[in-house]
């Protein structure tokens, strides 16, 4: 079943064209990852999909009654706004306390319910954002660099949970990520974006495409090497730093 279809989408920001003629569709149960350099329009695309940005041209069609789960990048919380984790989990729709506790536990954030959102570490904050998005049993989960601020263990946990969620809820997942080595392992399909979509397909196909190699240079070799040979190890992404 197709969850979302994007046709000929152009998006402008402040008069500047950011996205050009994007064509993309996402199926139920599929994990699609968008990769691309800074300023390539990854976040803009996600924001257009959730309805934050109006398209300049083209359209975004959602399956009828589609429930979205959205995990943004960590955002600023005004210090004047008191907010416990469990209250935040119940926005905008309230949930039973048992459900909230269960969602927190699944996200590896058990026992944080009574804490203030502002007192959370970056990693905890991301886990809470994911837990909140999952509470609504979304059909399509949209993640914007959701593993930012997570340590290695946290990243591994995160993707493991994503896999479980996809299996249990059968939802589609669309995410933006910079962790090329994990992306290659965790995605069904990779979309390489740079204003327009320059290539897309299975991770193996994209990793070997000239457009992708031109964009990410040597990193791709390392990422791909990790994917091919080292995916059973917990290895530091040393290649990405070079």
């Amino acid at each position, binding site marked *: 079943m197709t969850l979302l279809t994007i046709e000929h989408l152009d998006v402008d920001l402040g008069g500047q064209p950011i996205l050009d003629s994007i064509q993309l569709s996402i199926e139920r149960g599929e994990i699609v990852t968008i990769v691309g350099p800074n300023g390539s329009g990854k976040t803009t695309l996600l924001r257009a999909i959730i309805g934050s940005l109006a398209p300049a041209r083209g359209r975004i069609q959602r399956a009828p009654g589609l429930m979205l789960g959205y995990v*943004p990048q960590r955002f600023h919380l*005004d210090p*004047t706004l*008191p*907010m416990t984790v469990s209250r935040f989990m119940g926005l905008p*729709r309230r949930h039973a306390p048992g459900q909230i506790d269960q969602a927190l536990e699944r996200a590896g954030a058990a026992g944080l319910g009574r804490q203030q959102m*502002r*007192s959370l570490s970056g990693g905890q904050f991301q886990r809470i954002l994911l837990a909140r998005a999952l509470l609504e049993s979304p059909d399509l989960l949209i993640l914007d660099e959701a593993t930012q601020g997570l340590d290695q263990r946290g990243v591994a946990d995160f993707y493991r949970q994503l896999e479980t969620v996809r299996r249990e809820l059968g939802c589609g997942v669309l995410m933006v990520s910079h962790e090329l080595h994990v992306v290659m392992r965790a995605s069904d399909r990779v979309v390489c974006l740079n204003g327009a979509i320059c290539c897309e397909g299975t991770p193996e196909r994209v990793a070997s495409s000239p457009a992708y190699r031109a964009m990410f240079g040597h990193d791709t070799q390392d990422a791909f090497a990790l994917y091919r040979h080292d995916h059973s190890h917990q290895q530091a992404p040393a290649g990405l730093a070079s």
Partner: protein
Amino acid sequence: MILDDFQVRAALAGIGVALAAAPLGCFVVWRRMAYFGDATAHAAVLGVALSLVLSTSILAGVLTTSLVMATVVSSLSGRGYAMDTLLGVMAHSALALGLVAVSFVSGVRIDLMAYLFGDILAVGKWDLAIIWAGALLVLGLMHWRWSSLLTATLNTDLAHASGIAPGREQLILTLSLAVVVAVALKVVGVLLIAALLIIPAATARPFSRTPESMALLAALFGAGSTTGGLQAAFWLDTPTGPTIVSLAALLFLLSSLAGRLTPSVMKTTRQ
């Protein structure tokens, strides 16, 4: 009848305004709209002048100008203007223009001080009915939209993803603000309306763990300040509106000190 006592009417009027101002004031604080409240309130003087010139009801005039000001400001705010400068210009121009316009109204003796600082002791039964109608309207709006307003205040992208239109929620706040200004005019006057919005909410902050508890506490502090201020003004023979705000400021001071002294509260305000 109990409403025949002017002090009872004054107290009820004060409580009504404080209750409506509490949840709205919290949003004004959370969304950093303090100046926005000021501009809306100051536009009320212009409304008073216009209603005198056109001999319409003051309430209608004030509602209209406040609404226009609030709408203009909130639509400009999304367009990248230097907001604090712009608001400063608009708030004080509206006030000045209103004062000039009032001076043109010849033959009518109006008590300008009553509009600037309020005249809570002169609240009649009709005023009381309007104040409570306005307060209940605002409380109803806040209750109805509470979750959506909170989500939109936290993060507009989160709101969009949940099918909430932040622009519409902003409009509801704008409308509520104009109503509160219109009904609070008689109680504290244009110069001090913003104080009644912001101070109780700020006082409640150190003791609150959730948005709801902050709004409830703000209502309590607001109602306490208005009734206590009324009493104090009676004993000390001071102007009522400013006395109410002074008492609210005193409570704020005590709350900030308590917030510094209590370790558990420190945790929520630090960072």
